[in-house]
């Protein structure tokens, strides 16, 4: 695990350490089982077409879970994730197992973020971040925000 980040280490504009992710059709099956979301939108071609999204799409909630991973990795053992939100604005399509090693355009993902505000309140050292999932086409399909409390080197 990365070394602990402290309140004093971050400023507005500081980048959250990016996290790379790949969604495959196999992972969507795994996520369906783990989350209990068996909506055919994520595995049935005909259903996805009828819904107007073209082909099965990556679960929004999986991308949200990736953003949780992004933040908890960054804040480390002593940080506390207090709020997390995101909106599922754009569709992402999983990488097919057959073309696992030769991804199509857009089939790679980065979870990213940057600090938008820092302040002390009620004895906590709080940091707000803008966060998002970005696909290989550079589309921010899943924008959101997070509020975390970080440990401080010099507690008053």
């Amino acid at each position, binding site marked *: *695990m990365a070394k602990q980040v402290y309140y004093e280490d971050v400023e507005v504009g500081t980048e959250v350490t990016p996290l790379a*992710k790949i969604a495959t059709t196999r*992972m969507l099956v*795994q*996520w369906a*089982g*783990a*989350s*209990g*979301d068996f*909506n055919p*939108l994520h595995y049935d071609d005909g259903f996805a077409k009828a*819904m*107007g999204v073209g082909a099965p799409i990556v*679960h*929004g*909630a*999986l991308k*949200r*879970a*990736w953003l*949780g*991973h992004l*933040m*908890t*990795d960054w804040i480390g053992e002593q940080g*506390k*994730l*207090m*709020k*997390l*939100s*995101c*909106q*599922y604005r754009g569709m992402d399509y999983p990488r097919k197992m057959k073309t696992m090693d030769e991804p199509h355009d857009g089939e790679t993902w980065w979870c990213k973020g940057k600090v938008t505000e820092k302040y002390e309140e009620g004895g906590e050292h709080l940091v707000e971040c803008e966060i998002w999932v970005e696909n290989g086409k550079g589309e921010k399909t899943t924008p*959101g925000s997070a509020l975390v409390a970080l440990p401080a080197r010099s507690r008053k």
Partner: protein
Amino acid sequence: MANGSLITDELRKLIGMTLETIVFKVEEGAIQRYAEAIGDPNPLYNDPDFASKTKYGRLLAPPGFTGWPVKAGRLSQRLLGSLAKAGAPSRLLDGGIEFEFIEPIGAGDVLTATTKIASITERETKLGKTMFTTLETTFVNKKGDVAIKSRSTFILF
């Protein structure tokens, strides 16, 4: 009400209603499978021995573990069934979610989830006439403390 509104009188009556509450236990294996599906190797979610020696004292659930549609999702699906019965459009997309994490949750915890329909609104989008339904869920632990609050938006069209 404008002609052709998606929001029927039956739907309007559902706003603010709490339709059901469910109680569920957070299971160790469910946490591990969830962490594996995300691809998060954090030992707090994967290694019960490691986790038991931390301040949490048990395998910790990753943030959002309780989110739709895990467990309380069964409830959300029932709520959405009620929406359909009241005349809401049948095509559904998940619009997004906001979480407030107040108390940690982990293996063995028993949570009571209560979901209510916070709002139903509509507007024209690229999907056509679109309805937005917001559900608010509160997860209370055995001590009676609110552990998590969530607010999720569903897009019906």
